[in-house]
């Protein structure tokens, strides 16, 4: 990354581009190499190209200063400090109560239930969503309409209603059986109320709803991949399934991931809706406790802090997963926060003598 000034000063008309072009001594590379000295060698060279009298190569580079950035930072820091101070000193937040309940067994149990629901319905929802997206994009009119209808139904009914319907399925159908319709053949039969527990109703409701939304997200991602990619894969004889999973999906991931993480983070908090089934996940647990102790705000804070914690962890995952899928999409991967911090320290903390070398 040496500057152009340096190169001219060293009077080295070396064709740097020939190196990057590969080692082939073909005509293209040859002409390029030939033109460079001609340009700098003749007397008509433009002023910008003329070698300066002073050799700047050994000069120390001082990075540009940004005083207003520091002013802005100070203002923002002051505001943040003010908010933090009020949070810490206003006794009505009742941090003591928050601390007391934060890791209480019932709360942690509820938290684990929340995580379990999120993981199961998130994974199942996205797997089903992927299948629905492929169906929607398939050539079969039947598959297309089945997929469309699925999304239509589950996106048009409130999740709350879906939950209650699943939980009360036993009221509509006393028994569930697998067999051949319109005959007496039954492979097995089960009481609906035995099959649909609170947990099953919660997972069923969340999964199907999630699938309807993620199908659209995944479809959008797939549509964002250039048609030429599919053509090239087809022309190479790569089978359809492999085209989807190896060629299209990894490229679609770049468009899918940000929205998908939105959905997952929404789902973490969305699981709180299963309180209507009296399912003791985090939010329901908190409600039960504050109904008893009347410490409403502190307990809501406990739940909030846990939701923030989960979301934060997910955001870190999101960052690294997105980074993984940006492979090949950018020429050089952006630095991770850790690498950035290291670079910042090395450029700002070192003595001035070294700073020139570091910035080069």
């Amino acid at each position, binding site marked *: 990354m040496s500057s152009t000034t340096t190169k001219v000063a060293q009077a080295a008309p070396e064709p740097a581009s020939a190196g990057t072009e590969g080692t082939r001594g073909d005509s293209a590379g040859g002409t390029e190499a030939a033109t460079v000295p001609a340009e700098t060698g003749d007397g008509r060279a433009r002023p910008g190209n003329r070698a300066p009298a002073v050799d700047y190569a050994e000069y120390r580079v001082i990075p540009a200063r940004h005083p207003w950035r520091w002013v802005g930072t100070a203002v923002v820091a002051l505001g943040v400090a003010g908010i933090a101070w009020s949070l810490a000193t206003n006794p009505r937040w009742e941090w003591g109560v928050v601390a007391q309940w934060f890791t209480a067994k019932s709360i942690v149990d509820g938290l684990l239930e929340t995580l379990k629901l999120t993981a199961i319905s998130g994974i199942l929802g996205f797997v089903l969503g992927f299948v629905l997206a492929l169906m929607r994009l398939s050539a079969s009119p039947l598959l297309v309409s089945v997929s469309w209808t699925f999304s239509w139904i589950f996106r048009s009914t409130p999740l709350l209603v879906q939950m209650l319907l699943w939980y009360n399925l036993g009221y509509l159908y006393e028994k569930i059986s697998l067999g051949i319709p319109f005959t007496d053949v039954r492979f097995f039969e089960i009481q609906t109320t035995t099959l649909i527990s609170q947990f099953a109703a919660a997972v069923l409701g969340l999964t199907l709803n999630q699938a309807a939304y993620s199908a659209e997200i995944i479809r959008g991602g797939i549509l964002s991949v250039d048609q030429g990619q599919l053509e090239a894969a087809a022309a190479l004889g790569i089978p359809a399934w492999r085209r989807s999973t*190896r060629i299209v999906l990894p490229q679609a991931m770049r468009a899918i991931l940000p929205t998908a993480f939105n959905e997952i983070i929404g789902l973490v908090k969305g699981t709180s809706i299963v309180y209507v089934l009296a399912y003791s996940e985090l939010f329901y647990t908190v409600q039960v406790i504050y109904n008893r102790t009347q410490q409403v705000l502190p307990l809501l804070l406990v739940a909030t802090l846990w939701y923030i914690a989960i979301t934060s962890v997910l955001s870190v995952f999101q960052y690294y997963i997105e980074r993984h899928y940006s*492979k090949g999409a*950018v020429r050089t991967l952006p630095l991770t926060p850790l690498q950035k911090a290291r670079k910042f320290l090395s450029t700002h903390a070192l003595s001035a003598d070294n700073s020139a070398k570091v910035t080069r």
Partner: protein
Amino acid sequence: MSTLATEIPATGTTRGLVEITKVRKSFGAAEVLKGITLTVEPGGVAVIVGPSGSGKSTLLRTINHLEKVDGGFVAIDGTLVGYEVRGSTLHELRERDVLKQRTGIGMVFQNFNLFPHLTALENVAEAPVVAPRSGKPRLTKAEARERGLELLDRVGLKDRAGAYPRQLSGGQQQRVAIARALALDPKILLFDEPTSALDPELVNEVLDVIRELATSGTTLIIVTHEMGFARDVADTVVFMDEGQIVEQGSPQDIFTNPREARTRSFFSKVIEPAFNI
């Protein structure tokens, strides 16, 4: 350049005959191919030239069944592309069998269409591992890598095997794409304007690779606007306009003594700048 000259595996002598018979194709109301008949002999090099929208690319894409024909048929070494003859009926082939046919036909696209999330080597080594091939076993991953490196070496890019397409210049990308098309040892190679998306100074590195292939015994069908290259490399030049073949013949005939007025007027517009290079 010497790497390119190393022997390319000898393809059988009777492989790679392309017969296009009365092929018709419409997109909506527009008929883009109006009954094209063309034969390219095994090992032959046919260059298709003509104005934009004359149906050149569409014709090329019917050869590997990326476009289904509306009428007529395409046959490779006597076997119909995309259909199976049973008695007096034609049965459309299932996807899997179409894929099998395609592995005998390599294609190079105007926009390269390299897989951007895979390295140069992974691009080249992907198809031999997964594509169904008639008569030949699939390669293992290790074999495909080795073969991929050989092919990248042949196009002069062995040292860039680990680079992603976006880290390569246009000419390098197209050379990787050619290596990728060669990975299945096709008997026919289709080039759809392989240099149209390239900066002028990168065109030659791609044309040089194609020139080498022209002597390898593989049948080449090339759509291009590079008239000088066409004259060099072709044994047949086909001039198309408005969905029809206006005339075809040796480069000498077509470029210096065109019979048709349409051909003359086209070349009078395109040839001069092309030959000034």
